[in-house]
């Protein structure tokens, strides 16, 4: 049995779904960040698998860019969480409810 590109795509889709479910279900901001990372990494997996399958290089370059964007996003996100943590000593997003209407 050979492992074709479809397998990678299925795995990536599964990872993406897990990440999306994690973001929607979990309420701890840090775990939500991890789930978002999972989604972005499933994108990377798709890019690299497809790129290998098609014999093109652009997909791998795109994966590098996604990695950099993900790193920058996490840097910003953790900084925001630290700012919130100073007030609340909690990373539970359900406790953030000052703004409603």
């Amino acid at each position, binding site marked *: 049995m050979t492992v074709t*590109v479809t397998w990678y*795509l299925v795995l*990536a889709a599964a990872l*993406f779904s897990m*990440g*999306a479910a994690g*973001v929607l279900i979990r309420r701890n*901001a840090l775990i*939500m960040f991890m789930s*978002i990372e999972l*989604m*972005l990494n*499933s*994108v990377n997996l*798709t*890019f690299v698998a*497809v*790129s290998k*399958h*098609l014999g*093109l290089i*652009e*997909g791998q*370059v*795109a994966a590098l*860019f*996604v990695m950099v*964007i993900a790193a*920058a*996003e996490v840097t*910003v*996100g953790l*900084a*925001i*969480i630290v*700012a*919130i943590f100073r*007030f*609340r000593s909690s990373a539970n*997003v359900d406790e*953030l409810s*000052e*703004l*409603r*209407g």
Partner: protein
Amino acid sequence: MLTLDYHALLPELIVAGTVLVTLVVDIVTRRKHLVAIIGVLGLFAAAVPILTLSFCGSLDFCSSTEASRVMFGGAYVIDGYALVLKGVFIFAGFVALLLSIGYLESDRYYEGEYYFLLVASVLGGMAMASSRDFVSMIVALELVSGPAFMLAGWRKGDARSNEASLKFFITGVIALALTLFGVSLLYGLTGTQQFDQIAVLSETVADVPLFTLAVIFIVLGFGFKVSAVPFHFWTPDTYQGAPPPVTAWLSVGSKGAGFVALLTVCYLALPAATDVWGPLIWIVAALSMTVGNVVALKQTNVMRLLGYSSIAQAGFMLAPFGAVAASGAGDLARPFQATITYFVIYAVMNLGAFGTAIIIGQRVGSYELEDWGGLSKYATGVALSLAVFFMSLAGVPPLAGWFAKFAMFRATIGVGNWWGYSIAIVAAVNAVIAFVYYAKVMKSAFFDDVPEGIDVDVAMSDAIPAPIGLAVGLAVVGVFLFGVLPGLAANVGNFSTDLLGTLGL
């Protein structure tokens, strides 16, 4: 031998240089207002090459005879469309900077980094306008959003500002992940990231279910960015919690970048999938108008009200595009032009509305509508300015907003079938609803009594800070100019699409 068209890249290079210089100046000096001045000058300087590029044909030193300049193998294009949007982003950044100068001085904030991030965000918007492939587009989009996430939480001591920032961040990143997943699937199907090649290659895969899935993911991701219903939940919270000058930038710059991304991708890359994204955008536009306007009716905080108003305006902007694409009837260039015209006018009037709201908010000390009662009795000029912008947002002639609405209705009705007529009816009903809540603010400012606890002498004690005054003044001129000379705005819209036409796209 690599050659670069430095003239075409000059606006971005100037703004990128400004970003670096603001950081250096912030490091070496304690006089933070220098940073703001450099930011303003940098954006001003970047507007010059945009003008020379726009009128390249009639200038001696400008040798290029081509209508557009294609760079990096087609990934980055400087054409009329890109130039118009770059101009809008620079204007929006300019106004947001001016609004920030007066605002940041009123309290203890980190100043140097603020201007650095704001100019970086403007740079992202400019790169966005020229991006013609997915990698550069996503990077540009994140260059707009990344700094904006931080700016939204700039009032570190205020829990509401932090909350605004986190909500904005989480929705923004989910949107990014959705879009990227769609892009990766699209890449798998077509083997390219470049819009014009995708447009050609996707015709062979238009029947593959995976293609439909990819298109839906991409459009959904951009839907978050433009805060269209049902992806709008973060918008009012973020608009209320973020510092007001940042909100002004978010409502035009960050949202505008989302619009540009959505329009460019749908128009240039996915013409083979109009049957997928057309109805999707049609539904989103109708929902955005209705939900945005109806919920805005019961808002008591002006920033929240403007937040819902901007959701509704996004619906108006998307309406012609959705109608034409959904009906599959003919040329997308015309609704494209109407949408760009609407966006240009929206940028000017919305920035003015936020500028006026900031002036009032700083004097009254609150953004609650009930505290704004009787404004005209002690601050006539400011109240009149408020009237100008809110009536323009409502679409009252002879202010610019009416022409935006007119262009939108003309394009939707012009479709000539029920997709167009029905959304035109929805839009007309919504224009009436919108008038009600804009008029509610007017009534409060002009006819109500001054509420208890508002000390008129204190509210009138300071002069309006010169930068904010200048910003609002610019917007007033713009609103009247576009309203009295509608041809001007239409020409801007034409300019952006004429050149797209010459590309044969």
